[in-house]
């Protein structure tokens, strides 16, 4: 770790603590061990302070502020702790915005610290001034502009409290440069002033628990629909107990992957637009939907009126505003899902549902997730399934970008533990995978961290290969390279007569760049561009490319076993589609299976 002899002690004799020191000390006091920070004019004092606390906190320098913010998310998603990112004012700060919105939609606890121009210059359109609090109001859980050093210790305390408690989310702390340089106040541990925020979730009364148990007892076709709230609420064990006790068929959301192991006999995997057909059929046909830590997102429900339309709905969520927002619940319960499940497990009885269980088993056998295993090249699904087999016995974390590879990863990688799957699910931000993997690797140095990515998403934050190399984060990238924006290509194929509209990622003179393209499902793009292996090597990473199916396993093993960061460029065809598929706004009955 970089540090100089004079910079190791926070109590350095010559230095009087200033706002920047208080901020950094507060990070240390809140248990932050790693943060991702990119310096600039208005955040320099905080970076100087970080060097004074270098023994207690590791500062990782990303190559783009967005990369830093997604790394902080990877850290938070994989550990459950608050992720911290820092950037300078103006462009540095606005580069965080996408990742902040992303964290808000997926309820990821983050504290985002931005430099700001000095308070005397605020509002004057100063160099690198942007009104960050104004910009971030709608995309943060809360936000602060620190105008008085006296407020800083309290604000830092509140920021961490708000980010992590209740339904987690991102909190912005905008720090003007003069406040960073002001000398410390006396009171470093003031009480919080949050009369409108009480994080202690109400205890759910026994009547509500009994009501849920009664609904389960009377149900003949129940389904558990569980989501990210189970993972955020550390309620995986309680959920598994409920499933095992009752035998209720269970579907999860994309955010809920890992909470129910795919081997569980009652698991129906995940539901939604590209979820398993049997998951969607089961929800269509159920008479009781037990919704736990979910938000009835449109990618899950399709046409919301038709979603589970004959079912009685129990909805448990920590956020009262989620209840009855998209879908009216018959039994809405505001509360901590872990408490609800703990108490429910004490009294719940196994319902008489053997016919229904058998029906769900038949659905699962009849409509498995599948792909053409006979194809002699490497299909994306095959690459992912092979990776899943090879890594089954070791601690592995998977991050993804957004698009076809993301959906296939969710379908064909077997997630058996919570917090091992990192996906930008609500906002759907391309470029999430590589920086998120960095953050996961920083939090879990001994684990295998693989970014399964597409060539479109990967290039949105490809610069972070430099961070992986320079900060010694041995992230692996499994690049499913089809030279296209595959998900949009799939929609073009299905709905636009295969007319390519800016979905080919090679030079524009190539015929594939314009006009209708071939309908051959297994066509490879010619004249491959760019040379990802050269790029990765240029950044100092190991890299290889593979096209033959027979070579895939060895290539994956080489990637897994490599000591440093490594990119495996897998040449795949570009017209393979993610199936099943429920078109946007449609119903399960409109599901495309082939």
């Amino acid at each position: 770790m970089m540090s100089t002899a004079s910079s190791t002690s926070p109590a350095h004799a010559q230095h009087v603590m200033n706002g920047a020191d208080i901020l950094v000390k507060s990070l240390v006091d809140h248990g932050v061990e790693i943060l991702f920070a990119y310096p600039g004019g208005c955040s320099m004092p905080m970076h100087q302070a970080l060097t004074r606390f270098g023994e207690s906190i590791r500062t990782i320098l990303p190559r783009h502020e967005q990369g830093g913010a997604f790394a902080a998310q990877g850290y938070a998603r994989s550990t459950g702790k608050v992720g911290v990112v820092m950037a300078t004012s103006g462009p540095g700060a606005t580069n965080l915005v996408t990742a902040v919105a992303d964290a808000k939609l997926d309820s990821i606890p983050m504290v985002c610290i931005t430099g700001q121009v000095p308070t005397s210059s605020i509002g004057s359109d100063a160099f690198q001034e942007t009104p960050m609090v104004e910009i971030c109001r709608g995309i943060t859980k809360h936000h602060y502009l620190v105008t008085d050093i006296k407020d800083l210790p309290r604000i830092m305390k509140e920021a961490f409290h708000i980010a992590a408690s209740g339904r987690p989310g991102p909190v912005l702390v905008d720090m003007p440069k003069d406040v960073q340089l002001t000398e410390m106040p006396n009171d470093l541990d003031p009480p919080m002033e949050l009369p409108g925020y009480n994080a202690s979730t109400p205890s759910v009364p026994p009547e509500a628990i009994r009501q849920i148990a009664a609904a389960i007892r009377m149900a003949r076709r129940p389904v558990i629909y569980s989501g990210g709230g189970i993972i955020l609420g550390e309620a995986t064990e309680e959920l598994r107990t409920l499933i095992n006790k009752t035998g209720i068929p269970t579907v999860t959301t994309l955010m809920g992957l890992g909470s129910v192991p795919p081997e569980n006999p009652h698991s129906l995997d995940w539901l939604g637009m590209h979820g398993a057909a049997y998951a969607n059929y089961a929800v269509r046909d159920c008479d009781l939907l037990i919704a736990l830590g979910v938000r009835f997102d449109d990618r899950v429900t399709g046409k919301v009126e038709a979603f589970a339309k004959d079912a009685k709905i129990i909805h448990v969520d920590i956020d009262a505003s989620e209840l009855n927002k998209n879908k009216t619940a018959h039994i809405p319960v505001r509360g901590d899902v872990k408490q609800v499940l703990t108490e429910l497990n004490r009294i719940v009885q196994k319902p008489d549902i053997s016919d229904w269980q058998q029906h769900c088993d038949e659905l699962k056998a009849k409509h498995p997730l599948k792909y053409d295993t006979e194809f002699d090249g490497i299909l994306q699904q095959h690459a992912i399934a092979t990776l899943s087999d090879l890594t089954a016995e070791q601690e592995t974390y998977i991050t993804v970008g957004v698009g076809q590879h993301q959906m296939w990863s969710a379908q064909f990688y077997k997630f058996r533990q919570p917090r091992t799957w990192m996906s930008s699910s609500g906002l759907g931000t391309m470029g999430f995978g590589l920086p998120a993997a960095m953050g996961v690797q920083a939090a879990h140095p001994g684990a295998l961290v693989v970014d399964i990515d597409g060539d479109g998403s990967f290039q949105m934050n490809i610069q972070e290969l430099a961070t992986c190399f320079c900060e010694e984060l041995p992230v692996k990238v499994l690049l499913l390279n089809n030279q296209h924006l595959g998900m949009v290509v799939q929609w073009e194929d299905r709905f636009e007569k295969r007319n390519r509209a800016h979905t080919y990622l090679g030079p524009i003179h190539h015929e594939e760049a314009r006009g209708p393209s071939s309908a051959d499902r297994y066509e490879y793009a010619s004249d491959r561009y760019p040379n990802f292996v050269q790029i990765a090597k240029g950044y100092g990473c190991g890299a290889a490319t593979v096209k033959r199916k027979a070579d895939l396993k060895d290539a994956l093993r080489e990637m897994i076993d490599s000591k440093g960061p490594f990119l495996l460029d897998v040449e795949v065809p570009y017209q393979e589609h993610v199936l099943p598929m429920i078109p946007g706004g449609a119903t399960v009955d409109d599901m495309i299976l082939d």
Partner: protein
Amino acid sequence: MTQSNYRHLLSALVQNVPGVLAHISGMLASRGFNIDSLAVGETEDPKLSRMTVVVVGDNSVLEQVRKQLEKIVTVVRVFDISSNDFVERDLLLVKISAPAGGVRTEIRELVDIFRGKVVDVGPDEVMIEISGREGKVQAFIERVRPYGIRELVRTGRIAMVRSGEIKGGSDRFATDTATG
């Protein structure tokens, strides 16, 4: 029981900190809620302000507005005023064309009937202050419209529950459990 155009009066006690009005109005706008009026001012406690919001929509809209308001960290408490016996007021200032003479007398009579006040007089116009329920204020505006309204400004509605226990004061920490 749906009342798709029903007007609900919500009263929100908020922390008196910079940006809280922008936060609330931004939330209401970005979630597409239909707001008739929004009034804000300090309360007996200088640390708190009160916002009175008139929301148009059915009960499910009201429920969402209320929950989304409660979710804002600086919002301390939200009350559904319209589920109580309450007093509401709207203050109007209006400048009307009124050359000296008979017209001015007519206007003064109208002002008396509506229990308003003439607060300023110019060579050919008068400024009038009226307060009351929205219906009364609206009625006054219609009465004086024929004389020629030169300028008009209103505060938006404010409201207060009459003495007694306030119903519909949401306890944001209560369990949201339905009876059905």
